[in-house]
């Protein structure tokens, strides 16, 4: 592994950490001092160079370590990656989308050469050199969605569009904030969002679904979601909750800065060409509080967001228990001064 990629763990000894560069580009999700749900989708256009929005799929210093962790999760639980049979074509669409984007945006790491349907893919960081026939899954070691998402950061769900609805019918889900692919696969848009409190009353999902049904080729959108995680654990699945749940109860004021993480999901949505399906990448970024407070604006704002968030939301996001400890840690950083709008550091 080169100097470009961290050698770190997301379990056991938890050696994960962000370099100064990673901290500076961290997608802090709060553009104002309080938080409430909204559809908040915007076009996924190329953003500021160096930012997480610069490229269609962001590859950062955690790439190799995250893929190693994914492989471990899948070895322990193969049900984290499933594709209903009719979704294989959508898997090919996704493979094409990712391979083309990464070969274009990171040519130093990825190369894609196509000769008709004979494709040649090179992934240098993961030392993969693969030739295969596009649309023929017998020429890949596993299905196309699994193949490419084992090499791409973030979770992915594929949604079939029919009956004026979206149906979650394939996915690679190993870095989720507490939902089960195995249970939810097959559900419609409103069904898999059913457990989210408050948002349904606010018709957030009605508007989101209507918007997504008309999502077009070549016009992806993005939005943020966020939660909190104790320890830099990517695999906070319901399946493993008995293993990671207890970790929440052992936090102390001394360990909080190191163990408490803000977990931000950069969610994008793309229409796929052959299947007409929608892919929903959910890219997870972690930052520990000790790292986050090195940016004064973020420290100030995060204190206010956590202080004012309704208990129902804090409970749903799983951090109600440690909210007092978090506030105790953050309040010294909040001098009460106004904070500039937007998410970028001052």
């Amino acid at each position, binding site marked *: 592994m080169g100097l470009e990629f961290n050698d770190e763990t997301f379990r056991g000894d938890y050696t994960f950490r962000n370099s100064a560069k990673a901290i500076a580009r961290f997608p802090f999700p709060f553009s104002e001092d309080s938080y409430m749900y909204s559809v908040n989708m915007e*076009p996924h256009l190329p953003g500021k160079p160096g930012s997480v929005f610069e490229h269609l799929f962001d590859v950062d210093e955690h790439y190799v370590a995250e893929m190693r962790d994914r492989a471990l999760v899948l070895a322990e639980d193969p049900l984290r990656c499933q594709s209903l049979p009719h979704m294989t*074509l959508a898997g090919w669409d996704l493979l094409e989308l990712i391979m083309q984007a990464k070969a274009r945006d990171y040519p130093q790491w990825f190369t894609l050469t196509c000769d008709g349907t004979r494709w040649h893919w090179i992934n240098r960081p993961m030392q993969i050199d693969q030739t295969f026939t596009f649309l023929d899954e017998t020429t890949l070691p596993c299905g196309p969605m699994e193949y490419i998402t084992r090499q791409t950061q973030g979770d992915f769900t594929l949604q*079939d569009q*029919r*009956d004026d609805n979206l149906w979650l019918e394939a996915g690679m889900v190993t870095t989720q904030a507490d939902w089960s692919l195995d249970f939810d696969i097959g559900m419609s848009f409103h069904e898999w969002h059913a457990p989210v409190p408050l948002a349904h009353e606010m018709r957030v999902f009605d508007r989101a679904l209507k918007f997504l049904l*008309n999502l*077009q080729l*070549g*016009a992806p959108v993005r939005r943020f979601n966020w939660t909190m995680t104790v320890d830099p654990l990517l695999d906070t699945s319901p399946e493993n909750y008995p293993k990671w749940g207890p970790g929440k109860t052992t936090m102390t004021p001394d360990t909080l800065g190191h163990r408490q993480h803000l977990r931000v999901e950069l969610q994008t949505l793309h229409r796929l060409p052959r*299947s007409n399906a929608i892919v929903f990448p959910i890219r997870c970024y972690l930052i520990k509080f000790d790292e986050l407070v090195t940016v004064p604006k973020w420290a100030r704002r995060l204190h206010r967001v956590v202080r004012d968030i309704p208990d129902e939301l804090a409970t749903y996001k799983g951090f109600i228990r440690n909210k007092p400890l978090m506030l105790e840690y953050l309040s010294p950083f909040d001098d009460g001064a106004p904070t500039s709008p937007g998410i970028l550091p001052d």
Partner: protein
Amino acid sequence: MSVGAPKIPVRVAEVVEVNPLIKRFRFVRRDGAPMPVFSGGAHVVIDMDDHGTRRMNPYSLMSDPADTTGYEISVRRDDAGRGGSLYLHRHVTPGMEMTLSSPVNLFPVDARARKHLMIAGGIGITPFLSQIAALTGQGGRFELHYSARSRDLAAYADGLMARHGDRVRLYLDDQGQAIDLDHLLQGQPLGTHLYVCGPKGMIGWVCKTAEAMGWPKAAVHSEEFLAPPVGLPFQVQLAASARTITVGPAQSLLEAIEASGVDAPYLCRGGACGECETDVLGCDGHLDHNDHWLTDDQKAGCQKIMPCVSRFRGNTLILDR
């Protein structure tokens, strides 16, 4: 305009007279790049300048989605229409430049179907051509029943029958041949999906028959090429743009809004997809809802209108545009 999706600048590569009523047009990208891959059943909106009148008409893509060298559409000449098909037939020649929207699919196949049963009438054959090409490549199971006025007018029937044998059945009106719909719908295995595209009457007949024979709505799919109806001219106030416009008799409300320089969202331009849904701020008169999008309740009220196909009769109409 439809938000965000890139437009495709093209050149007409070929114009072929398929039969006395139908011409096929082939488009290639002006920059020589490959066309975007699409899914069978998709359409594009062609943005044309007909001697000063801007026309934006949707046409199903009939070419093989895997063929990225160009897109093909077939246009049936409608002498009594608003002029879009006449313009294409009479004035469009190879070498001309136009702009296409990105492909949009409002008539996809159901990927779970054990079998796809397709019923086409006349020019309604076009979306099935791209679907059949895609399904053939994927090993899907389909059957096409194609009804046309005469052998002459049964565009592409020869090629389909040559390639797909008895999976394609042709019914010619002038030979007294008609689809035995009851018989056809009786013996289909569970998991068959039914698709129909053709004249309004045919679609109505197939959907009603399927329903009467117990087919669930979720297994019956149709696409109707709804052209904006003509009508009396009327005035409209665009509140958000602070201007008043007049909608001509052969011009749709959406076209009139666009012609005045106001950008309104759209996607299918045929009353089906909901993208152009507009709030009505004031209405002293009668809204003629010609779309398939609004609910019956919404059509009974006067809070919403679909400008791509609907019209107004009366004194005042104020829209939130």
